[in-house]
């Protein structure tokens, strides 16, 4: 019923224009090392304030797809992944480009990004609605437990150390507690200053952590580590692969898409891991594993299929449960909330049309990515030559505009700079940022659900363990922590 209405809602000038603008802008952000899909979505969020909800969300999704795909350009042309989701693309893409096969490498990467994207979107369309129906049975106990589970996974998987991940997540939770407390409105960490009463707005925190942090990090880096020479450009041929090659690559495609989807469904791992896992799987199942890393097209196929398959599947927990699994989906959560849409099971019941419009928009944006990438590839390669100081200075100005537009007050701009500094400090000390952001977003959810649950149970914690799904998620979180610790002890013993 919704599909036809959704199609007619998206096939109008404004959403189509949003896709036509969002995909190339996302690709530019993805192509330039240091800029990312997360930053593209964060910087463009304020621009959507005055847009209609469908157009605004379509723009953000187009930026997301473009941002994840754009990383392949720099991975192949300069050997530096534009985004962490294209790390494995450099392993064979760069050697192919240096051998004069850059055009073929770009063509393969673009085509399999499209194919991977289709797999991910299919999973989103098939899995999110039943999961949302199931989650309708969740109460405050279950929401508390599922949030704790998601946060534990993110804390453990985002960095090298579980301890540092947990510390970053706790810091995010504590900082999110600033302002009036839920339920009784008691001020916390406000130091008597009314500016702190509403807490820190999400957007300046995100922009500070990811964009201002990047500018400060660039400034802190020695000049010699800021440049790398591009390979000679050769134009790819549409569609990038012949039918025989495509059929031969199908086992690799299906395996890599499955890995990308699996990784996307679980909170915390993200596309930066999916491409590496898919690459490793492709290499170990290849008859000639030694050719990987020297310019084997199968390496590009696995990496690019997996990272784009991740896009659709990462949106399943966001849309069905209201729980973002990584930084980009956290931004999308912000985008949905700004437009009065609360992600979670009720989104499907109350805003079914918008949900289906987003499904349609993702399919169109994925196709647009294929066309924009193929026919605009020369432009994206040229973008790599634009001096980074100009780009970063411009990003800073956009951040200030975005932060100020959040609430038309300078406090949000001060927040931006403060969190930029905090982001740099955490990064330089080896603390991962995704757990901090997830802690910042999930902290208030955890507290509200915990307080409501305890009010309904008259202060008893027992129902958290009595209710099957709540107990299951808490048990999984505990089991995960034990697993990581056991593995660590084993490694230490082996090293001793």
């Amino acid at each position: 019923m919704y599909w036809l209405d959704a199609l007619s809602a998206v096939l109008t000038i404004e959403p189509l224009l949003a896709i036509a603008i969002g995909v190339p802008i996302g690709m530019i952000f993805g192509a330039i090392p240091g800029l990312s899909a997360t930053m593209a979505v964060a910087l463009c969020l304020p621009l959507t304030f005055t847009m209609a909800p469908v157009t605004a969300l379509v723009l953000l999704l187009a930026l997301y797809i473009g941002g994840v795909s754009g990383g392949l350009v720099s991975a192949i042309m300069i050997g530096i992944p534009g985004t962490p989701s294209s790390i494995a693309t450099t392993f064979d893409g760069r050697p192919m480009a240096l051998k004069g096969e850059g055009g073929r490498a770009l063509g393969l990467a673009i085509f399999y990004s499209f194919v991977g994207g289709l797999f991910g979107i299919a999973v989103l369309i098939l899995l999110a609605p039943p999961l949302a129906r199931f989650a309708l049975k969740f109460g405050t106990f279950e929401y508390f437990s599922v949030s704790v589970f998601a946060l534990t996974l993110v804390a453990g998987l985002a960095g090298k150390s579980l301890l540092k991940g947990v510390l970053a997540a706790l810091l995010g939770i504590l900082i999110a507690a600033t302002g009036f407390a839920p339920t009784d409105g008691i001020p916390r960490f406000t130091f008597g200053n009314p500016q702190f009463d509403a807490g820190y707005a999400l957007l300046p925190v995100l922009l500070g952590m990811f964009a201002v942090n990047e500018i400060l990090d660039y400034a802190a880096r020695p000049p010699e580590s800021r440049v790398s020479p591009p390979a000679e450009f050769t134009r790819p041929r549409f569609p990038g692969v012949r039918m025989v090659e495509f059929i031969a690559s199908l086992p690799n495609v299906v395996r890599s898409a499955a890995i990308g989807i699996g990784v996307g469904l679980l909170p915390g791992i993200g596309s930066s891991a999916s491409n590496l896992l898919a690459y490793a799987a492709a290499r170990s199942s290849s008859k000639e594993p030694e050719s990987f890393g020297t310019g084997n097209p199968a390496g590009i196929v696995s990496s690019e299929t997996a990272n784009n398959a991740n896009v659709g599947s990462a949106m399943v927990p966001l849309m069905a449960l209201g729980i973002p699994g990584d930084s980009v989906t956290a931004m999308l959560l912000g985008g949905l909330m700004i437009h009065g849409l609360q992600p979670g099971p009720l989104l499907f019941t109350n805003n079914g049309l918008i949900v289906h419009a987003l499904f349609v928009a993702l399919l169109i944006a994925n196709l647009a990515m294929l066309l924009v990438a193929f026919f605009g590839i020369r432009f994206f390669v040229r973008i790599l030559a634009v001096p980074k100081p100009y780009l970063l200075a411009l990003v800073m100005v956009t951040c200030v505009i975005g932060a100020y537009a959040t609430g038309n007050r300078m406090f949000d701009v001060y927040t931006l700079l403060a969190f930029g500094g905090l982001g740099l400090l955490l990064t330089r000390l080896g603390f991962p940022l995704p757990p901090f952001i997830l802690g910042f977003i999930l902290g208030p959810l955890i507290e509200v659900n915990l307080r409501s649950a305890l009010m309904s149970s008259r202060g008893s914690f027992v129902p958290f363990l009595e209710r099957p799904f709540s107990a299951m998620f808490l048990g999984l979180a505990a089991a995960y922590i034990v697993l990581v610790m056991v593995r660590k002890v084993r490694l230490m013993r082996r090293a001793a």
Partner: protein
Amino acid sequence: MTDRKENLLGGALFLIFGLAAYVYARSIPRRAPVGIDSGFLPEIVALAIAVLGAVLLVRSLPRRGRTDGDADRAPDAGEAERIVWLTLGLTVAAIAGYIVLLPIAGFVIATALYLFVQLVIFASRSPRALLYAALFSIVTSVAAWGLFRHGFGLILPHGLWG
């Protein structure tokens, strides 16, 4: 910075921050007849930060039988690179100056000045580069005002001159 030094400094900072936040959280008024009050979560989280910060700190202290050299030879010791404090300090000062100037001078003037100063800090300082930077700063700030203020309808700081 090596892994051990990172952990030492990180652990110490989290320990101090956790303790300070815990002391503050203890002063949050309690008013919950049933369940937990508004001080519960900040208190627990601050305490956990202090304890885990201490664990990180203690784990990274040099131990007997292990030399500094061993500890410093972490697998990713080469990844962390030196920090150029001068450029970083100047960039922070430029951004801070920009933010201070915004409500006084307004978006266009503050942005043009910031862009120029930031480009001088980051890029080449030849007369030609300075000219490009100046042109880029003026054109960009005016274009950004036009695009965001009039194109997207966003409110931007207009300064004391209105």
